[in-house]
């Protein structure tokens, strides 16, 4: 079974600075997808960014980018120019590419990000 590990329960960053959240995963599959979700205090889960394992190029969405290291099974999220609205719990998630997986996600335990003004 796949596992996702987020080793940083809490992180903090100054407004306008850059922060990197870590995520590692364990899998024997070659076809899979990785995601970062954000959960603000409202507890609504919001997709931040996704990465296909077959793509070597790191995904980028505005101020959010990932560092995907397939061999190391590492998938970190970098937030540039941090804003107060970025404060939230961030979850890393894995999705198998197998047809029989039902497209279900395996989540890490999350990293609580605080943004200081």
């Amino acid at each position, binding site marked *: 079974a796949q596992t996702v590990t987020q080793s940083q329960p809490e992180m903090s960053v100054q407004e306008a600075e850059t922060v990197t959240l870590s995520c590692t995963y364990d899998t024997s599959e070659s076809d899979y*997808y990785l*995601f970062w979700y954000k959960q603000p205090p*409202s*507890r*609504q*889960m*919001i*997709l931040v960014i*996704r990465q*296909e394992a077959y793509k070597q190029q790191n995904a980028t969405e505005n101020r959010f980018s990932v560092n995907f290291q397939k061999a190391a099974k590492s998938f970190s999220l970098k937030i540039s120019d941090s804003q107060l609205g970025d404060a939230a*719990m961030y*979850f890393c998630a894995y*999705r198998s*590419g*197998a*047809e029989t997986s*039902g*497209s*279900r*996600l*395996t*989540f*890490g*335990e*999350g990293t*609580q990000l605080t943004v200081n003004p």
Partner: protein
Amino acid sequence: SQTIHQWPATLVQPVGSPLSLECTVEGTSNPNLYWYRQAAGRGLQLLFYSVGIGQISSEVPQNLSASRPQDRQFILSSKKLLLSDSGFYLCAWSVRWTGGHEQYFGPGTRLTVT
């Protein structure tokens, strides 16, 4: 555009009482549907998923059950709630076929069992 609804938003129930949480999706057909539970400050645990009407897969043995009576309706139930059933319940949907499609989440239901 697609929308996912969950109700109720909050629920306080005594131990031993029944439970019914409902999730509906609008704006898409034949979605995969999912029920997750999240304990306070923790990650999401997948409870059930469904790839079609009447097709339910259970991930964790417990006193909860799920049903999908219609294509875009997913119901989480219990005959007798336990204290350990307290938590935040999230419904999600995704496009049915493979291709790395992400899941989209509803607003959640906060359940407190007293």
